[in-house]
């Protein structure tokens, strides 16, 4: 039996604090019992219930608690009246010290807004189930090959076998997300869209029915069948204004006209991560590589049979994999299948980023709270005389505590309200600016759960910030206050308290600053990585060749050449090339090959390289150096010898023993001779080692996928517009899209690193500022309260330098208290960042730099008050009170 579920500790703590001491056990017992019952409905539901119950319970319990602890003297007065008095008094005080009030409200409001925004995004990503029927049954299927790891894709034929053989799965569906081009009206510029090619099973596995029109029919899943599309709900609303008459209309897709047969329901916008614009039936000719056991290229999901578990499905897939390995040893020998919960698989990749964000913001909120706490403490300490007087004329401790709570809560509820208002826009900015797409389960909205979380955050922040002052307020008695004034020095316990807050702030700021620093270093070192080609002055444009031009391979290549020549003849263009795939754009052709004459297997167990079909001008336009041998030339056409240019990494790996030039490789059912060696270039990520790459003449392996690379300093938008004009003469159905400078593509590939670095370093700078302001405040305050003591010491002959050293030393001691825990915590955070592969830089160096920076900054901040302290005039000081 599993242990009884435990009430969240924060809830228990809040209830414990709010309840009258006498009632604490019974309140907590009730909550524990009820929470255990709620847990049967699931963890999320129970947490939601708990948040609402705690939020609703705290006000009556607090009121009761205050009434119980009140002395009989004030019992007669109405609760509401005293509360109003407190509020009015607090407001008056806030007006008297507006800077304190405003900065508190701003700091806390910012913190709460940021925290609420992140909570609302995380709730939609992690807690809310996918918007499909029985979402827990949906699974992602993957293929695992020992040598390459796991890919969330299945071979088409394997998927078919799993579908018919697996009793634990009710369905297996495949799909492929890709870029497409679309034009609604002739004459307008083409638009790039995300197209989801879906097999006949996907709609039924997800359980989505069309919101409008019909689904695809069987005849449409046959290669050569009618071209049809379904619009996703979002695309339908954004592009067609939600016009129901659009069903039945025709769109110009890159391949030819396609009829809109239906509109998908909004739920389908959430699948896959980031959604798509259109669905089309997945079709391919029987000769396609997709139809061969060797290829693994289509994503796959499934639905668990009712009662089946991930474990039982995994076990059954193991059996099927073994069966296939025996039946098709050549392709399936090393192949296994994996199954995982679909939502978990979708959110997995964003988890480290979200944790980073949540951690950084929690740290910042904690720093702000500590800052405010010491501010309130110092502020209340100044009012010690007032409190002592009120206590002396009969105010109970409870009455004074209530006054302080009212003030704190008033500040925080103003801040919390402001924060809640700001949270919505902030969450939307976060989603919009997030590099890539977030697998949201629904639109990010501030629902009851999120607002409750925000309320609890505010209350927790108020408690943290207010509690020290209120605990301390017990000590303010008239005698003590008078003695304090007489002695003219701040109480040791106050100084210890504020020192603790400074230490806590320093520790948290060091962690944040360290995180920001290493993420920033990671980004800057990435941005300075040389890609192996010159990304400046190259514009990339995707061209979609109409289907009728693709039927004959030679004609298709001729069209591609004509497009290139048209681009090269544009004004301000130095040259143009075309290629099947280009660096830092989706798509690549990874394939097995072997050195001619060797006994290596061609396939998953043999050598592996990326193959790039390029026109001869590619090397000149991209400035990829030819290190040895010759580049490809126009003579390397369909009639010519089969030749390739390889990169240095390929040459070294495949021909470690001899010159690669003149070497031969077996690939794509042909023998290819290496005629040149090009410099290494990066194609997918600035981080990875150089892959072995092979450049193949386009004419010798013709493919329809076409990218144009244009050497020009002119803006991409102008080039694409002019080229579209010229393309009309070649074929009016050619669509151009995705015009973007190469430099931009490169920058986009580093977008996650830039985003992480920007967010954390911004937060870190705010944290540093808060911590230093806190430190300065504490030091300055302690100097002011010790004016008399310092004056006496100076009068007795102490040297000003010694006073300065003492003040700076005090500040550094407070700093040191945070330095050690901060360093340890930073190290732990650093290890996590490395293990989540968010960071690639030297941690020790960064840590040392951050710690040194903090000590220097701390000493600098203390210098001002120290200077003032050493200039205290003893006579003035003694006359002070």
């Amino acid at each position, binding site marked *: 039996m599993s242990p009884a579920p435990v009430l969240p500790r924060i809830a228990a703590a809040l209830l414990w604090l709010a309840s009258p001491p006498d009632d604490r*056990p019974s309140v907590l017992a009730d909550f524990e019992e009820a929470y255990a019952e709620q847990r049967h409905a699931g963890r999320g539901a129970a947490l939601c219930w708990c948040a609402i119950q705690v939020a609703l*319970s705290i006000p*009556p*319990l607090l009121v009761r608690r205050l009434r119980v602890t009140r002395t009989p003297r004030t019992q007669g007065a109405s609760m509401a009246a005293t509360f109003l008095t407190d509020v009015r008094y607090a407001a008056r005080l806030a007006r008297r010290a507006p800077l304190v009030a405003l900065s508190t409200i701003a700091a806390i409001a910012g913190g709460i807004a940021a925290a609420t925004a992140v909570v609302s995004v995380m709730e939609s990503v992690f807690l809310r189930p996918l918007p499909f029927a029985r979402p827990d049954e949906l699974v992602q299927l993957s293929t695992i090959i020992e040598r390459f790891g796991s890919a969330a894709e299945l071979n088409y034929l394997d998927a078919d076998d799993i579908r018919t053989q697996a009793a634990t799965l009710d369905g297996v569906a495949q799909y492929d997300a890709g870029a497409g081009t679309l034009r609604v009206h002739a004459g307008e510029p083409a638009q790039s869209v995300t197209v989801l090619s879906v097999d006949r099973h996907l709609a039924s596995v997800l359980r989505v029915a069309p919101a409008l029109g019909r689904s695809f029919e069987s005849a449409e899943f046959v290669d050569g069948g009618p071209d049809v599309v379904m619009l996703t709900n979002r695309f339908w609303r954004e592009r067609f204004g939600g016009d129901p008459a659009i069903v039945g209309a025709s769109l110009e897709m890159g391949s030819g006209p396609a009829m809109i047969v239906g509109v998908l329901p909004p739920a389908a916008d959430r699948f896959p991560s980031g959604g798509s614009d259109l669905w089309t039936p997945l079709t391919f000719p029987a000769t396609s590589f997709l139809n061969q056991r060797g290829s693994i290229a289509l994503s796959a999901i499934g639905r668990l049979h009712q009662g089946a578990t991930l474990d039982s499905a995994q076990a059954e897939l193991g059996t099927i994999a073994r069966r296939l390995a025996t039946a098709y040893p050549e392709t399936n020998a090393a192949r296994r299948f994996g199954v995982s919960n679909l939502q978990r698989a979708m959110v997995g990749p964003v988890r480290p980023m979200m944790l980073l964000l949540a951690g950084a913001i929690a740290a910042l909120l904690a720093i702000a709270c500590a800052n405010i706490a010491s501010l309130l403490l110092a502020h209340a300490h100044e009012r010690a005389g007032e409190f002592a007087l009120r206590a002396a004329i009969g105010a109970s401790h409870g009455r004074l505590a209530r006054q302080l709570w009212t003030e704190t809560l008033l500040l925080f509820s103003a801040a919390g309200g402001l924060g809640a208002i700001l949270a919505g826009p902030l969450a939307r900015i976060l989603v919009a600016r997030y590099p890539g797409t977030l697998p949201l389960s629904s639109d990010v909205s501030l629902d009851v759960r999120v607002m409750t979380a925000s309320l609890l955050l505010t209350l927790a922040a108020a408690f943290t910030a207010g509690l020290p002052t209120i605990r301390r307020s017990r000590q303010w008695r008239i005698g003590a206050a008078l003695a304090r004034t007489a002695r003219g020095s701040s109480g040791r316990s106050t100084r210890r308290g504020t020192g603790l807050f400074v230490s806590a702030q320093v520790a948290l700021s060091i962690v944040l600053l360290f995180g920001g620093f290493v993420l920033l270093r990671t980004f800057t070192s990435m941005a300075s990585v040389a890609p192996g080609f010159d990304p400046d002055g190259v514009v990339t444009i995707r061209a979609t060749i109409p289907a009728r031009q693709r039927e004959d391979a030679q004609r298709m290549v001729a069209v591609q050449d004509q497009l290139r020549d048209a681009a090269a003849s544009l004004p301000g263009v130095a040259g143009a090339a075309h290629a099947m795939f280009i660096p830092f754009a989706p798509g690549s052709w990874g394939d097995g090959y072997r050195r001619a004459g060797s006994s290596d297997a061609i396939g998953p167990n043999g050598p592996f390289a990326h193959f790039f079909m390029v026109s001869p001008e590619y090397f000149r336009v991209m400035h990829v150096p030819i290190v040895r041998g010759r580049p490809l030339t126009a003579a390397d056409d369909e009639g010519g010898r089969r030749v390739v240019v390889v990169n240095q990494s390929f040459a070294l790996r495949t021909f470690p023993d001899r010159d690669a030039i003149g070497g031969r490789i077996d690939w794509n059912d042909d023998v290819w001779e290496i005629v040149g060696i090009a410099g290494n270039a990066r194609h997918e990520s600035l981080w990875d080692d150089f892959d072995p790459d092979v450049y193949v003449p386009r004419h010798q392996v013709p493919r329809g996928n076409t990218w144009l690379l244009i050497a020009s300093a002119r803006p991409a938008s102008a080039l694409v517009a002019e080229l579209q004009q010229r393309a009309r003469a070649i074929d009016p159905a050619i669509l151009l899209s995705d015009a973007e400078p190469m430099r931009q593509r490169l920058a986009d590939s580093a977008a996650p690193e830039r985003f992480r670095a920007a967010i954390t370093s911004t937060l870190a700078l705010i944290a540093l500022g808060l911590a230093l302001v806190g430190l300065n405040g504490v030091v300055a305050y302690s100097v002011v309260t010790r004016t008399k003591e310092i004056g006496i010491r100076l009068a007795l002959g102490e040297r000003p330098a010694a006073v300065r050293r003492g003040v700076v030393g005090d500040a550094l001691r407070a700093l040191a208290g945070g330095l050690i825990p901060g360093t340890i915590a930073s190290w732990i955070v650093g290890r996590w960042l490395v293990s989540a592969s968010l960071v690639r830089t030297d941690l020790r160096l960064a840590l040392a730099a951050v710690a040194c920076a903090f000590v220097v900054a701390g000493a600098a901040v203390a210098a001002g008050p120290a200077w003032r302290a050493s200039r205290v005039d003893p006579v003035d000081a003694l006359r002070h009170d």
Partner: protein
Amino acid sequence: MAKGDFVGDFELLVLLAIAHAGDEAYGLAIQQQIEQRTGRIVAIGAVHATLGRLADKGLVRYRVSEPQPIPGGKRRKFYRLCPAGVRAIRHSTGMLARMLNGLSPDLTEPQ
């Protein structure tokens, strides 16, 4: 008629729930009685605060139980109506009944 016999809406609900719950009238049981019978969400903390107030007024009394028989088990307060509590229920419901008396049925019948 003592002043304490006047009770508020929610206090009356709590008193009635104690009567319903019988020997098992502790905070959560009372909260669940009210939630089930009225269909409105009731904060557990509000019930406890109200019980404390009713005890102050002398309308209910409680005994503290032995700790629950589980590790970390807590002591509970079990409530009973005092004679004044019974009087308060009679008083409030009686007042209500007299006010309703003679009104048209579509105003007084439960929806």
